[in-house]
C-alpha cells in the first residue's frame, strides 16, 4: 500500500480509493511499528469484563476520561485479578483488530494495582489475625532488663545490622549479639524469615530477639505482612522487638511483635539499657550505702549520747529511794535517840542501885576500910610493915592503931 500511495503523492489527479482492508492493515502496521506501543504497561479500572468459555478475557480499561478496549488470551497471567471495578496494572501491546476495526490492547499479564489490592489483602489478614488473638496486648511479653544474648534477624549486609551493632557497641557492650542472617525482601524473604525464627527457637539462652529491616516501599516491606512471618514471630520462644521500615510503616510483624520499635536503631536502644545509666544506678547505690553507713555511725553516736542523757534524766528518779533512805536514816536516828534515852534511864537506875549499895551502907553492915598511914585505902597486907600506922574506918567513926606483926599469905610478895 505504501508504495502505491507514495507514487501518487505529488499528483493533483483524483485520489486513489483504498480498500478497507488496505487501510486497516496500514493502521495495524503503523501501530505495531511503534516500540512504545509494543511493550506497554497501563494502569486502569476494569469494566465490561467478560470471560466466555473460550477462556479468553475481554474487558475495557478506563479512567475518568478515556477507555481502551482490551483482550487477554487464555495464556495470559493474572486473569484472577480481572473483574468489573478492580484496579489493575496490565502489560501488553497495542494493535488493531481489523475484523472489527477496533484498536485493542493485547494484554499478556495482569497484576492488582499496588496500593489498592495489597492494602485490601493486608486489611483482610490483619483483621483475621487480630480476631485470632495474635495481636493481643495480654500476650505481649516483657523485655528482659539486662539481656545477655540478643538475637538479630535481618540481612547480614547493609545499614540495618551496622546501625544495630553501632548502637549496642556504644550503649550496651555487655551482651553477645547472635546474628541470624536472612533476606528481607523479595519472594524468598518470608520463608527465610520463618526459618530464621525456627533457628532462633533451636538456640539456647537467647534472651530477646530483634527482627529488623530498613525503609522501603510497601512492596519491599511486604514479606513482613505475610501470614507465615506473623505466625513465626508469634511462635518465638523469646520476646521479639520488631523494627520494620520507617516509623510511618506498620506491618503485621509489628502488630504481632512483643514490642514495636520505630527504626532498627531504636530497637537497639529499646532492647537494653544504656550502660551509662547503669553506671549511674551503681553510683547511686554506692552513694546510698555511704549515706546509710554515715547515718548509722551518727545514729550510734547519738544513741550513746541519748543513753547518757537518759541516765542523767534518771537521777531525779532516785528521789524516791533517797527519800526512803532519808526516812530510814531519820527513823534510825530517832531509834538511836530512843536507845540513848532508855540507856540513860537504865544508867540512872543502875546509879541509883549503886548508890543504894554505897560504902556507907556496906560499912553499916560490919565491913571496914583499912587505911595506910597517909589515909588511902589499903588493898593488900603487904602494904604494911611492923610498926606502921594503920587506920580503920567504920560506918560511924574510925580507930588509929599500930601494926604488931605482918603475916603475908603469898611468900613471893614479901
Amino acid at each position, binding site marked *: 500500500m505504501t508504495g502505491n500511495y507514495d507514487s501518487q503523492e505529488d499528483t493533483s489527479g483524483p485520489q486513489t480509493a483504498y480498500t478497507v482492508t488496505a487501510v486497516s492493515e496500514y493502521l495495524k502496521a503503523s501501530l505495531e511499528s511503534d516500540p512504545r506501543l509494543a511493550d506497554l504497561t497501563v494502569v486502569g479500572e476494569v469494566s465490561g469484563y467478560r470471560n466466555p468459555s473460550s477462556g479468553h478475557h475481554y474487558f475495557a480499561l478506563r479512567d475518568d476520561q478515556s477507555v481502551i478496549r482490551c483482550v487477554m488470551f487464555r495464556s495470559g497471567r493474572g486473569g484472577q485479578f480481572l473483574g468489573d471495578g478492580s484496579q489493575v496494572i496490565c502489560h501488553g501491546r497495542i494493535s488493531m483488530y481489523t475484523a472489527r476495526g477496533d484498536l485493542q490492547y493485547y494484554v499478556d499479564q495482569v497484576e492488582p494495582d499496588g496500593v489498592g489490592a495489597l492494602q485490601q489483602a493486608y486489611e483482610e489478614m490483619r483483621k483475621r489475625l487480630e480476631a485470632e488473638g495474635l495481636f493481643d496486648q495480654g500476650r505481649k511479653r516483657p523485655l528482659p532488663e*539486662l*539481656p*545477655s*544474648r540478643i538475637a538479630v534477624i535481618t*540481612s*547480614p*549486609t547493609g545499614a540495618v*545490622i*551496622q546501625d544495630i*551493632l553501632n548502637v*549496642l*557497641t556504644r550503649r*550496651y*557492650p*555487655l*551482651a*553477645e*549479639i*547472635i*546474628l*541470624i*542472617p*536472612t*533476606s528481607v525482601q523479595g519472594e*524468598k524473604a518470608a*520463608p*527465610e524469615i520463618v*526459618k530464621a525464627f*525456627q*533457628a532462633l527457637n*533451636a*538456640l539456647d539462652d537467647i534472651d530477646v530477639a530483634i527482627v529488623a529491616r530498613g525503609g522501603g516501599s510497601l512492596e519491599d516491606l511486604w514479606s513482613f505482612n505475610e501470614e507465615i512471618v506473623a505466625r513465626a514471630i508469634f511462635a518465638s520462644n523469646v520476646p521479639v522487638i520488631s523494627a520494620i521500615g520507617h516509623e510511618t510503616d506498620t506491618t503485621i510483624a509489628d502488630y504481632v511483635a512483643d514490642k514495636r520499635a520505630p527504626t532498627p536503631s531504636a530497637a537497639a536502644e529499646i532492647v537494653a539499657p544504656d*550502660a551509662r545509666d*547503669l*553506671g549511674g*544506678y*551503681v*553510683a547511686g*547505690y*554506692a552513694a*546510698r*550505702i*555511704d549515706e*546509710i*553507713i554515715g547515718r*548509722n*555511725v551518727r545514729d*550510734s553516736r547519738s544513741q550513746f549520747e541519748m543513753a547518757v542523757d537518759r541516765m542523767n534524766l534518771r537521777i531525779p528518779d532516785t528521789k524516791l529511794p533517797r527519800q526512803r533512805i532519808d526516812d530510814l536514816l531519820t527513823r534510825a536516828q530517832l531509834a538511836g535517840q530512843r536507845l540513848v534515852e532508855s540507856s540513860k534511864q537504865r544508867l540512872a537506875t543502875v546509879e541509883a542501885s549503886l548508890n543504894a549499895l554505897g560504902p556507907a551502907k556496906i560499912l553499916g553492915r560490919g565491913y571496914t576500910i583499912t587505911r595506910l598511914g597517909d589515909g588511902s585505902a589499903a588493898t593488900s597486907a603487904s602494904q604494911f610493915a611492923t610498926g606502921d600506922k594503920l587506920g580503920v574506918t567504920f560506918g560511924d567513926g574510925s580507930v588509929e592503931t599500930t601494926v604488931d606483926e605482918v603475916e603475908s599469905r603469898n611468900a613471893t610478895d614479901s
Partner: protein
Amino acid sequence: MTDTPAKPAAKSFENSFSQLEDVVRKLEAGGLSLDDATKLFESGMKLATKCNEILSSSELKITRLQANFAEQMNLVPGPEDDFDDPEDEDA
C-alpha cells in the same frame, strides 16, 4: 555459634548488681549492729567497684549464626542466598 566462650558480661554485671541491690535493701531495712552494717558497707562498695569495672571493660561480642549450623538443622534455604557471604561485612 558452637565455640561461644564464657558467659557475656551482662550476666556477671547482673549478679553483682543484684547483690548490690540486696546490700542496699538490707542497709535500708536497718536494725543492724554497727559492726554488721560496716561489713555490709564494705561488701557493697566492693560490688559497686566490680559493677563499674564490668561496665567500663566490656566489649560487644558478635556471633553470626553459621550456615552449616542452620543446615544441620535443615533450616537453611538454597546456596544462592547471601547467607554464605564472607564474614567481613558484619565486623
